[in-house]
């Protein structure tokens, strides 16, 4: 029997669609998920407001816990900032994944005919945006409260690199943690021991820029952050399929 010419045409069109433009469709799927998260957040504002209030409270508590006088401030500022970001970050990561799980949205996402890793990148970029928003608000507040200028390009670069590494592994672990019985408790326990290289390098790098050290002394920390970001984004990309498999 001769193949139906119309059918072969469709097949050819299909295969050319999927083989020649996989990147474009991947980016479209990722962007759609990011957009969905941002739109949902814009309407409910429950995640960002919780992260922000929590971050400000952590800074407040540090003020009482550590006597942040002028001399102490110079050395502990980067540590306080990163503890704040890390704690507020777990709150956001947990919430953003729990939301998907509770309302059965994750199953819907998994049914969509897109590459699973597009879901990972979409969620990760969404989480990164929330983290940046929190950081953009925390930095000026900290600057005003403690009279120290935090808007230096080097420091912002460290914060950017550190947040990318933190979110890359955090999104993966959050999607694991929400599928367990003890999920709210589990995420920090899973995340913090793995993210220590990021925190060490970010604290040291930030401190270097704040103290005005030579760039050659800060370079090892920046390199470590970049290496961590690349490795853990790649690993998460490879194993995410196994984490959401049903």
């Amino acid at each position, binding site marked *: 029997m001769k193949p139906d010419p119309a059918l072969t045409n469709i097949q050819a069109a299909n295969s050319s669609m999927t083989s020649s433009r996989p990147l474009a469709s991947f980016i479209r799927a990722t962007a759609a998920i990011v957009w969905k998260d941002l739109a949902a957040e814009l309407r409910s504002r429950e995640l960002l407001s919780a992260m922000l209030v929590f971050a400000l409270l952590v800074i407040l508590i540090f003020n009482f816990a550590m006597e942040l006088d002028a001399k102490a401030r110079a050395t502990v500022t980067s540590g306080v900032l990163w503890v704040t970001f890390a704690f507020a970050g777990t709150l956001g990561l947990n919430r953003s994944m729990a939301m998907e799980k509770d309302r059965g949205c994750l199953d819907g996402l998994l049914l969509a005919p897109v590459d699973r890793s597009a879901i990972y990148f979409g969620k990760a970029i969404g989480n990164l945006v929330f983290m940046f928003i929190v950081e953009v608000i925390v930095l000026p507040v900290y600057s005003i409260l403690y009279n120290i200028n935090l808007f230096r390009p080097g420091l912002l670069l460290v914060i950017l690199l550190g947040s990318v590494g933190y979110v890359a*592994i955090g999104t*993966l*672990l959050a999607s*694991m943690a929400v*599928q*367990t*019985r*003890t*999920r709210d408790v*589990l995420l920090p*326990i*899973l995340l913090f*021991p*793995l*993210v*220590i*290289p990021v925190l*060490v*390098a970010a604290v*040291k790098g930030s401190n270097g820029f704040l103290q005005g050290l030579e760039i050659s002394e800060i370079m*090892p*920390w920046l390199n*470590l952050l970049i*290496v*961590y970001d690349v*490795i*853990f984004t790649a*690993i998460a990309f490879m*194993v995410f399929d*196994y*984490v959401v*498999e049903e």
Partner: protein
Amino acid sequence: METKPRLLTILDGVTIILLAVATALVFFFTPIEAVMGNVQKVFYFHVANAWVGMLGFMASAIAGIAYLRTGKRSWDIVGMASVEISVVFLLIAIVTGSIWARPVWNTWWTWDPRLTTAAIMELIYAAYLLLRQGIEDPDRRARFGAVYAILGFISVPLTFLSIRIFRTIHPVVIGNADPSAQGSFDMSPAMLRTFMFSLLVFSFIFADLLWHRIRLGHLADKVEQLKLKVTQ
């Protein structure tokens, strides 16, 4: 009910004898270190315990990769078994290290790269066990365990590197020693031989325990299946 393999019984016996020999070597064969005295003898088993802790870490990551590739249940049992064994041995290494550090460094604990990394490794193991405890579905438990073992194995060298950039006082036993290290010493041939021998002995202990634990895992699976059959 399957019987215990003959080879495993032999391995048990060999391991016990080897451990007795190693203990005897440490007490009677090795010379007493000139500066540190008797406490230095903890070194032979201290390093060997840490060695088993590391072996299990590597074994669990390899088993994790194998599980994700093949989906065979037995790889999951291997991964779980090596973590359970290593968590104990690493803890022994940390405790014996503290016992050695108290007289030599005059402190129980310092935030040196190796000590910190060992502590973080122990915490990763604990997180791994907690993660598995929180999942009921055996298939998902195996997948998540495999993923977490791989992530931990990749993160630990980076942790070590990140803390390494600070100066260390932990002695480097093999390879070039850092002159600022305290409590380092040159090994005499008798010391080196005993040291290598205890590494070998503890590798035997690891293999023996791993075999027992894997067997236990398979038996537990079988019991689970039988229970299901009875209830149906």
